[in-house]
């Protein structure tokens, strides 16, 4: 389906995840974050870029992977992206919802 985010029509799935990463930009990220009640700070952007890089490299994302990478402590990750950090951060980053159970 199509959704207008930050005045740009983009393709999303039923859960609101972007279907085409090439349509993503920072304004869209800010708008998606706002819908989740999050104002993006430098710390948020650092995580968003990290998730996008991992996605680009085809590396699966998981909570344990985040912990092992040392990019951010798990507690802090939950504080930055309330309501399920991996799925919320992925949504804002314009990448698919991670398929991991961990």
């Amino acid at each position, binding site marked *: 389906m199509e959704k207008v985010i930050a005045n740009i029509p983009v393709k999303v799935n039923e859960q609101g995840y972007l279907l085409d990463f090439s349509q993503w930009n920072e304004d869209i990220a800010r708008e998606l974050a706002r819908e989740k009640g999050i104002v993006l700070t430098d710390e948020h952007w650092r995580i968003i870029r990290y998730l996008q890089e991992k996605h680009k490299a085809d590396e699966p994302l998981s909570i*344990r992977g985040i*912990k092992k990478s040392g990019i951010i402590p798990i*507690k802090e990750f*939950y504080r930055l992206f309330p309501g*399920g950090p991996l799925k919320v951060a992925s949504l804002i980053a314009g990448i698919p919802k991670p398929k991991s159970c*961990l």
Partner: protein
Amino acid sequence: MGTTVKKMLFILSKATLENVYAAFIMANGARMEGIEAEIFFTFFGLEAVEKKKLEHLHTATVGNPAMHIPTLLGGLPGMEALASNMMKRRMEQMDIPPVGEFLEILSDSGVRLWACKLAVDMFKLKEEDLVDEIEGILTIGDFYNRADMEGTHIVFI
């Protein structure tokens, strides 16, 4: 819109690897979806949070038809250790953390962990015998009182 599940309360009563991991993965999975999660460790489930025992949990080789080991063979010395090591190795390959690290992840993710008062008394344990991630010792009544919102579910494992 979205799930109607808001809070998952797990009661873990056994400490075989398969039961412990079932509880941990479901609790962690709840938090990943933004659902609250808590675990109440009771009876043998307490071994999963006993400092001295948590890294030595086993999988059941007897009375477990899905292991595809004949019951008599499953009871032979060493069988349980063998099956447990195979399972642990496979889980590490799949990036599933060992019990101690998993408890850390659960606690950091906001899963609240409780020990059952009756079981703690029964096994003559003290608070210092349990991992630091255990927030307190509760009665089952206290635990029921934690089911304080619409969309709470209690699962016995």
